[in-house]
């Protein structure tokens, strides 16, 4: 059975070039970069090189790059590290559609007595910037708003937001885990103070991330230990993975154009064909300012887990915003925040492509998904009800 992997927003394959550069650093060049001797020193050089590559990818200075273990750690560090630096400020602004690595930190802060403002989104998943303007106060410690949504792919106007936030002198962070590698990032021209990225969304391995911290930004270390990362993040550097991430960023820069042309075309093709062949299908999220590789579709009157399992049986790997797959009993908080109707919220499927996706794979999905939806609609009590109401049965 062939595997059609269309769940790249969940994780990506490690690029062969990335794996290749990592290998010597496990058993050959395994020194600790902080050591005084030549054996550690040579590794230090490689780490510096990787850091420069990441910096170039982000349009930043190497000294502004802090390596972490993952996107979640970067988000936690950005938020808690900033709040710790402004203890007298007790207000934080974020949105209702953040990834749990930001969302659950906000919930935690709420329990600790912080006032948390969660900006709402409209039916297309867009923010209201007036709502943001009205929420800013002198007691606001920071604003953290994601760059692009992992479920719908909707891209927020981060630079426009940055203008508003920085005019008040408030620290501004973004979770760019899904955006990196898909849309161009340039910190030299940006208003952002901090930005999180995650290796395993960029064809690097799971277990490595970056927090970009603009020079001059106040920050208290989240992971406290040795003096690594200039005292900003304790813990011996994850050398092989850092080297891998450096290479991955280099490749991502090269492939940026392909993501926005070839991959985008495949996504558009898949989406258009599915909308054409399957009645009562909705697209979740606005289609203009959206990641080139993502489409979130809702199929009315059927449930997400069932769709995913039938797809999985055919080798097709996607994900869903349904309750049964969310780990909680409610459908995705993103879809709920967008006001997606109940007829559709539980039946949502997310396809997220990569540069490795092919047209043959899209055709395979286009061939097999419509019968799956029809099969589940035949089992569902609501589909026949709907047809009757339409006079179609």
């Amino acid at each position, binding site marked *: 059975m062939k595997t059609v992997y269309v769940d790249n927003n969940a994780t990506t394959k490690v690029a062969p070039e990335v794996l290749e550069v990592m290998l010597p650093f496990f058993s050959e060049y395994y020194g600790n970069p902080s050591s005084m001797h030549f054996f550690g020193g040579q590794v230090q050089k490689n780490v510096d090189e990787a850091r420069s590559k990441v910096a170039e990818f982000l349009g930043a200075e190497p000294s502004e790059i802090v390596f972490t273990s993952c996107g979640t750690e970067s988000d936690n560090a950005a938020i808690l590290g900033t709040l710790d630096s402004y203890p007298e400020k007790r207000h934080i602004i974020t949105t209702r559609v953040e990834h749990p690595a930001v969302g659950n930190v906000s919930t935690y802060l709420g329990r600790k007595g912080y006032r948390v403002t969660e900006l709402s989104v409209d039916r297309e998943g867009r923010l209201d910037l007036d709502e943001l303007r009205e929420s800013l106060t002198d007691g606001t410690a920071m604003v953290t708003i994601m760059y692009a949504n992992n479920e719908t792919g909707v891209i927020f106007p981060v630079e426009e937001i940055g203008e508003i936030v920085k005019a008040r002198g408030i620290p501004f962070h973004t979770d760019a885990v899904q955006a990196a590698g898909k849309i161009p990032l340039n910190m030299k021209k940006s208003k952002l103070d901090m930005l999180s990225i995650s290796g395993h969304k960029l064809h690097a391995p799971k277990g490595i991330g970056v927090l970009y911290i603009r020079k001059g930004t106040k920050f208290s270390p989240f992971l406290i230990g040795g003096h690594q990362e200039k005292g900003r993040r304790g813990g011996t550097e994850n050398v092989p993975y850092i080297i891998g991430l450096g290479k991955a960023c280099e490749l991502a820069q090269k492939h940026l154009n392909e993501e926005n042309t070839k991959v985008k075309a495949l996504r558009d093709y898949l989406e258009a064909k599915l909308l054409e062949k399957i009645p009562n299908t909705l697209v979740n999220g606005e289609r203009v300012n959206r990641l080139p590789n993502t489409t979130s579709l809702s199929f009315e009157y059927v449930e997400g887990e069932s769709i995913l399992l039938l797809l999985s049986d055919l080798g097709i790997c996607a994900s869903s915003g349904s309750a049964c797959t969310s780990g909680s009993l409610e459908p995705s908080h993103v879809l709920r925040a967008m006001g997606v109707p109940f007829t559709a919220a539980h039946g949502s499927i997310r396809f997220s492509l990569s540069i490795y996706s092919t047209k043959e794979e899209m055709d395979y999905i286009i061939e097999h998904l419509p019968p799956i939806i029809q099969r589940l609609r035949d089992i*569902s009590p609501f589909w026949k009800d709907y047809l009757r109401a339409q006079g179609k049965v």
Partner: protein
Amino acid sequence: MWDYTEKVKDHFLNPRNVGEIENPDGAGEVGSLACGDALRLSFKLDEKKRIKDVKFKTFGCASAIASSSALTEILKGKTLEEAAKVTNQDIADYLGGLPEEKMHCSVMGREALEAAIANYRGQKVTKEDFEVICNCFGVTDREIIKAVRENNLKTVEQVTYYTKAGGGCGQCHPKIEAIIKKVRKDMEKEAPPPKPEKKKLTNIQKIKLIEETLGREIIPALKADGGDLDLVDIEGNKVLVALRGKCSFCPSSEFTLKQYVESKLREFVSDDIEVEEVRP
């Protein structure tokens, strides 16, 4: 991600009895699009009032579809009285088990069955008579109590797995905890008292008790059948005896030794006693 049994997978991929019966004798529906699962059950009875035909339509995940399919198979041929006794655990057992987080799918099966039977009987199963505990999922105290009792639930998390109550905002958790406490207290009162613990005996006490039991209970019984028994020695928990009279050449003596003598001594003295025959 879910560890589904082969039977769950089978009933999901090949569900039995999908459909809606025209002019059913009984029909019930539970759940909704908002909930994320719904089940519509309909049945027809034969002249003997047994369930002749039963069909389902389900909106939901693999567990929900499999549970509904399993339910219809369980119901075929049953009388309404028998059907009314089917529990959510029966559905889960039929499928070889469901992940705990999915047990509410089997509960949905049982609720649809209740609704269908009530419909047949012309009764209305309304939620208005009961207190809604969980507002996010509209779960009443009656449903929570039933789930706790029938499935021996102990925690709020389990109640969520079986009824969905508490799986949303979480504000009803204290109320759920209170219900669990009360129901389990009631259940304890109804349960039979445990057997009294036997006290630990000293060696001398044990030997005396063995001699007493042999003399009072065991030997008279053997003598009544023409047999007899001599106590030869006691080594720790081993009681060495010699059978006399008819017992000494009876083919069933081994059986007598173990089944009767040993069990009696275990009952009256200590449950780790072993009896062995010493042959001259």
